[in-house]
């Protein structure tokens, strides 16, 4: 038990232990940052969908925050913060530092704005009126007010004090939602089909003119076209009349309600989507409304310059574009890697090609966007248009679209796939290759039957990295096919089902558009976070799918380092 040199303090610690601690700290900090970012996005993105109570605030006399001359105003409290002389900071601060509240007052059509700041010191009284209602609307965003009466076309006036009022209103709103869907069906689907056929006929007419076919030639297409167009016109007129009839029914019932500032408003029930009594509902119903709001976000179309409604077209566009990009990049990248690794004679030329590929991974993405615009859109698209669609009034493939966007991003992420595939191919053991060749297989048979399946997990790793990089890029997309608002999805039930020439919406671009180009930045703020959260979620889902596939492949082909 004597103290030998082996026991002294310096040699009790294994060498390099401080680096282990440093590495662990680095990892922890990285994880904490990721979790912090996710937490911030989740909280700020999800919280606005939780139905909040509406407060009615009475201001002190002489306050300068009066809204349209009224000292009483109401809305949902969105934010509380401290006012300082050089800017503002949220929460915290001195207890007696001047605070202000931001209220969401809704009713953009009445007030001209929907968010309002109120000094906390100006507040004389606060109340939670029980009978205030929040309406979700088609236009001008939500409305907050106290319902007065429902003027129906057939049943006279139903006052809000009537016990039947709420159920009658809900009934009428359900009817009007159904009516709106019917109108949409008529206009989008049926009239849309007619429009498409009219457009095709117009193109055919242009083609006939270009070819110089005489109108009076017997049996020429001119008569047939004219006849068909007349028939379509008649059908169109009938459908349009029906749609107009339905639209008129929207105005049958009028909802009368009083704003918290005192003014009385009238609104056709056809413009209301949903309503809730925010100060009356219990927590269970709040939870239901919360999930309903989130469902609307995921499945509905945008309204009010993308600040209201849902973002389904952006989700679908991002998903489809990432899918097309993966379909484009995988065969191209894998075949290129197979050629470079297996078939090309390893000399200075192959080395130069490899260096070029690796450098391509560092090129800024906007450069790819410009290349995509010049090569894909103008050159390839223009050539396709002049060859296949000479009589179209507007460019089909000669302008941005989901096809060119996917191909541009596929080019951008190809280096990642090529490098990962090359590494995976190199990691297949010589023994497996030699065994296959000794059995009399050709080189391609060996690659196809032995090498590629064994390398598949590594190839999928490359694909995961490519998808993660591609789904998040926005700059190149702005040049090759993304738009702010596009009601039609690139995928529909009419031939050719996938419309590769259509422009599309994208979650990343949506965040940019909401954050920087929105006319109402306060209303856009919760949408920005919600869209960001969805973008992260979509990439995670795509990656998880690829990881699951990779795990299954790994278990089946137990060799290989990846």
């Amino acid at each position, binding site marked *: 038990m004597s103290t030998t040199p082996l026991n002294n303090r310096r040699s009790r610690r294994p060498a390099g232990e401080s680096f282990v601690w440093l590495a662990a700290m680095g990892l922890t900090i990285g994880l904490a940052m990721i979790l912090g970012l996710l937490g911030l996005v989740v909280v700020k993105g999800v919280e606005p969908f939780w139905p909040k109570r509406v407060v009615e605030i009475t201001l002190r006399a002489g306050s300068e925050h009066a809204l349209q001359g009224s000292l009483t105003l109401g809305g949902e409290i969105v934010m509380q913060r401290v006012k300082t002389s050089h800017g503002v900071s949220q929460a915290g601060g001195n207890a007696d530092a001047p605070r202000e509240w931001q209220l969401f007052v809704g009713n953009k059509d009445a007030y001209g704005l929907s968010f309002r700041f109120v000094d906390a010191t100006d507040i004389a009284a606060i109340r939670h009126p029980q009978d205030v209602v929040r309406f979700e609307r088609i236009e001008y965003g939500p409305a907050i007010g106290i319902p007065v009466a429902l003027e129906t076309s057939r049943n006279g006036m139903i006052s809000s004090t009537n016990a039947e009022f709420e159920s009658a209103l809900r009934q009428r709103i359900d009817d009007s939602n159904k009516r709106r869907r019917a109108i949409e069906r008529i206009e989008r689907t049926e009239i849309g089909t007619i429009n498409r056929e009219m457009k095709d006929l117009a193109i055919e007419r242009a083609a006939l003119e270009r070819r110089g076919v005489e109108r009076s030639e017997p049996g020429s297409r001119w008569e047939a076209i004219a006849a068909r167009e007349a028939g379509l016109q008649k059908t169109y007129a009938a459908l349009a009349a029906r749609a107009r009839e339905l639209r008129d029914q929207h105005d049958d019932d009028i909802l009368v309600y009083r704003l918290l500032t005192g003014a009385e408003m009238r609104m056709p029930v056809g413009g209301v989507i949903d309503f809730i009594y925010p100060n009356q509902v219990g927590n269970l119903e709040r939870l239901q409304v919360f999930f309903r709001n989130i469902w609307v976000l995921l499945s509905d179309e945008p309204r009010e310059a993308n600040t209201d409604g849902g973002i389904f077209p952006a989700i679908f566009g991002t998903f489809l574009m990432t899918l097309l990009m993966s379909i484009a990049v995988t065969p191209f990248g894998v075949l290129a890697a197979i050629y470079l690794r297996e078939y090309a004679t*390893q000399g200075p030329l192959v080395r130069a090609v490899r260096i070029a590929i690796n450098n391509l991974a560092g090129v800024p993405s906007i450069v790819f966007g410009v290349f995509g615009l010049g090569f894909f859109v103008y050159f390839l698209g223009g050539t396709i248009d002049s060859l296949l669609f000479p009589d179209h009034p507007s460019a089909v493939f000669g302008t941005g679209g989901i096809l060119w966007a996917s191909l541009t991003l596929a080019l951008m992420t190809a280096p990642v796939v090529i490098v990962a595939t090359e590494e995976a191919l190199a990691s297949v053991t010589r023994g497996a290759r030699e*065994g296959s060749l000794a*059995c*009399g297989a050709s080189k391609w048979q060996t690659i196809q039957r032995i090498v590629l*399946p*064994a390398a598949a997990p590594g190839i999928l790793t490359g694909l995961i990295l490519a998808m993660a990089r591609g789904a998040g890029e926005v700059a190149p997309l702005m040049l090759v096919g993304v738009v702010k608002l596009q009601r039609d999805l690139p995928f529909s039930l009419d031939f050719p089902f996938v419309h590769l020439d259509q422009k599309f919406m994208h979650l990343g671009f949506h965040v940019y558009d909401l954050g920087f180009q929105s006319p109402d930045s306060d209303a856009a703020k919760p949408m920005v976070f919600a869209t960001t959260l969805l973008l992260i979620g979509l990439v995670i889902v795509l990656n998880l799918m690829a990881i699951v596939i990779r795990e299954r492949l790994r278990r089946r082909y137990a060799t290989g380092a990846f």
Partner: protein
Amino acid sequence: MDVTQHNGADSYAGSKAKALHPGPDNDMRASNPSQPFDPRLVSIENYDFFYGTAQVLHNVTFEIPERNVTALIGPSGCGKSTLLRNLNRMNDLIDGVHHRGDIKIREQSIYHPHLEVIALRKRIGMVFQKSNPFPKTIYENVVYSLRVAGLKNKARLDEAVERSLSAAALWDEAKDRLHTSALGLSGGQQQRLCIARAIANQPEILLMDEPCSALDPIATSRIEDLILQLKKQFTIVIVTHNMQQAARIADRTAFFYLGRLIEYDATSKIFTSPANKQTEDYVTGRFG
């Protein structure tokens, strides 16, 4: 005695079509005990081999008789594995190799410009030092060479599996788990699977590159018994470090040293009364 089989189907240059459909009715299966015995099945003539500028085989000349076990022995680096791998032109995969001289199988040069290497390899099976079963099922491993040759008939594939696994003494252990992963077998079983895979296409020649060096003594002795059985059907060339193994199983033995063939004779003679002093030093353990 110069007995050679020479019909048109046998000529390697025109054998591509036939090589695609192996089977018992193919008359290229000359490893048939009813055929006359060929003492010069493989003949190596004045063979030099170079890795780039380094010469690893110097003027090697000898013949390998049919349906015998021929062992190549010698210390590490003497070129025996290189020679073995050249018999089915596996060294073609390496850049910068070239050779002088010739190797003939049934009097047809394996370096004939019209010969397809793949056709050659279909006629020669190879077992490697470290067993390398494919990460597929046992069944798929055995039928691999048949599938790449284009055979799809399930009945014939099944029959080939049973025949090969029985010949490799693995049928009883594997018949209930044919469709499980081959990687689940033990080391000795995997090597026997590789042997089954190598003989599934009914090749004429079986090359074995130190097949037992990674196995324990019991597995080794099972494979040695197997080799003695297989030699009734196949011509076997085996490279081994283990002189006792060569003494046990080989009919003829070739001793190599530094790329030169020092002595080649019946095994009993090599081990009891070798003609060359270097051979004697090696087999008595004085070096190597």
